[in-house]
């Protein structure tokens, strides 16, 4: 039997006293109370957001659909690689395996290796922790990047079960000057499809995270693909001029939004 109108259920205030704050924050403020607990709508909103985040972590990228959207005329065919983590469960437990190539991938990279000095940039499109982010943003971002660097020799690699540092052996195998890893970021409840870019000059196994530059939060309510490409091209141009990436380059880039680590930054995907 549904509660009659005079039975108290959840206390959700008729005029939202938090209305004036809502444009200032996405935080879940002023949710009301059912006793001490969340009212049902707020409970289910939260569960849906968590489900979207979980599905983003465990989802798989439709790599064929993605490849069909990529500007391959300028880059040659996609080179597909796989990390040494065979599946998602292993990937989540063993970040070390996600940072190195499986047994079959080096041969595919070597077969596609351009003559020495002929690869300015490899774009590594990596699933990371959000398949949804890669599916949504990798292709438009790649278009925006390539449109800004005519004349550059670029290769595109797609990487499965990949961490950021997988770009190091990939870039090294192709003899690339720069590796930009486009990777799905760890999903939050408010955004499950956020993409990040990690740029490394002279990529090779053993590079440290402090030797990379990062652009994060590329999604519908964050950094747009066009602005991200703008910032990346600035970084890449400076990286080539100064022959480095990382902390030293960041300090010279006052117009870029800070990528400085907050005190409790999670490890990159």
């Amino acid at each position, binding site marked *: 039997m549904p509660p009659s109108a005079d039975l108290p259920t959840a206390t959700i205030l008729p005029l939202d*006293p938090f209305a004036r704050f809502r444009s200032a*924050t996405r*935080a879940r403020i002023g949710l009301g109370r059912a006793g001490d607990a969340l009212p049902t709508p707020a409970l289910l909103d939260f569960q849906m957001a968590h489900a979207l985040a979980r599905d983003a972590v465990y989802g798989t990228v439709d790599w064929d659909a993605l490849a069909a959207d990529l500007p391959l005329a300028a880059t040659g065919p996609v080179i597909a690689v796989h990390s040494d983590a065979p599946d998602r469960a292993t990937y989540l437990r063993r970040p070390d395996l996600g940072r190195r190539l499986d047994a079959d991938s080096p041969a595919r990279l070597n077969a596609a290796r351009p003559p020495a000095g002929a690869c300015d940039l490899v774009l590594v499109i990596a699933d990371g922790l959000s398949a949804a982010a890669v599916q949504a943003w990798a292709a438009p971002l790649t278009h925006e990047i390539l449109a800004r660097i005519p004349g550059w020799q670029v290769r595109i690699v797609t990487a499965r079960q990949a961490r950021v540092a997988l770009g190091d052996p990939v870039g090294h195998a192709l003899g690339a000057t720069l590796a930009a890893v486009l990777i799905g970021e760890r999903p939050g409840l408010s955004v499950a499809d956020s993409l990040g870019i990690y740029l490394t000059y002279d990529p090779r196994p053993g590079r440290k995270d402090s030797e990379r530059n990062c652009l994060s939060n590329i999604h519908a309510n964050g950094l747009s693909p066009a602005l991200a490409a703008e910032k990346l091209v600035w970084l890449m141009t400076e990286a080539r001029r100064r022959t480095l990436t990382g902390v030293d380059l960041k300090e010279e880039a006052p117009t870029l939004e800070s990528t400085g680590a907050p*005190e*409790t930054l999670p490890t990159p995907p």
Partner: protein
Amino acid sequence: MASFSVQTGGQRHTFDSLSTVMACASPRRSGDELAGLAAATDTRRVAARMVLADLPLKIFLDQPLIPYETDEVTRLICDTHDAAAFAPVASLTVGEFRDWLLSYAATAQALRALAPGLTPEMVAAVSKLMRNADLMAVAAKCRVVTAFRTTVGLDGCLSSRLQPNHPTDDPLGIAASTLDGLLFGIGDAVIGINPATDNLSACMTLLEMLDQVRTKYDIPTQSCVLTHVTNSLQAMERGAPLDLVFQSIAGTEAANRGFGISLSILSEALEAARSLKRGTVGTNVMYFETGQGSALSADAHHGVDQQTVEVRAYAVARAFDPFLVNTVVGFIGPEYLFDSKQIIRAGLEDHFCGKLLGVPMGVDVCYTNHAEADQDDMDTLMTLLATAGVNFVIGVPGADDVMLNYQSLSYHDILGLRHRLALRPAPEFDGWLARMGLLDDSGRLPPPTPDQPAFRRLMG
């Protein structure tokens, strides 16, 4: 180096070092597996516990797991060890020590007196022989009380940090999350913001803003901007209204170097914050966060299991007479604590080990979206911790931290927990809630109504 072995079930298990015994005796967790330190089988794990149970507690004084010469945390542990306090348990094995801790002889007073005589390695060792209920039973006997403008850790109290984080540190957004939390009676441990950047002037702006909120409503609590200790030192030099100095700490010198700190920097910060004399009911001024796995992720664990290294961080904390310490237990991710079973176990271990060492331990009951955990698991862990007497937990609006992208407890969760277990906020803060008219006759905090004076005052 001496090896350790045990004959059991027709099989001989040998461990090549004390660190190996400790690592193999740990409950299974992904971080130790990632480090290649975990027991390969369940039988080997229990065999390691059998070895450990028969070792004398003293062995950890004689055989440091991380060398004295190369690690200042080991030097701190050895140099400040109180042999007189240790004397009552000095002849016990680790297994006998577990039995004694659970015995009626181990009263709150006895445990308080023992704390300076214990080292992190002893405490980590005994925790590995304990079930979850043992960890809760002993922790519940330990009271560690600290004070600044509120008194935290009293029997019958459960305090809370109000964490009004915002992805761009927007002042209005932070104010909204803060007011929402105050209406739930959250914030008696601290109102503490993780800033979006470590920029000094932005942190100073946040400090000013939090201090204005506190003084405007005359709230007996303390605020904190969780920026690097060197920023807090500069902010104090420039006259910012800083109550507590925050720092993330770890259990080895090398891991602390990775955080950009040393013991001497922490000493300097302690002196500076104390000299401001901003506390009204106490002089504890430091706030530390820790978490299993931080040393491994900095490649600074010296082959020691993640739980033991974590307890060493509490020895660092204890040296600076902190007001608050919490483990951010589920934040680090599934490569260190894979699922809710591992997160729950680690939360209870961290709380027990901190309390036994005399550290005012709280817990951020939390998880990330790539861990096998959800809000139901947090309900379990918060309830276990509250019965174990945790000093404080952390609340964010609707359990969703929109800046750090992880889930902690909601304001609702903490309020409900208090009501179910008849736990109160810190007495100074409880008095404020009463003065504001937010409490009913039984001391509960019912849903506010818009015509309530307190509601009008806070939201006006």
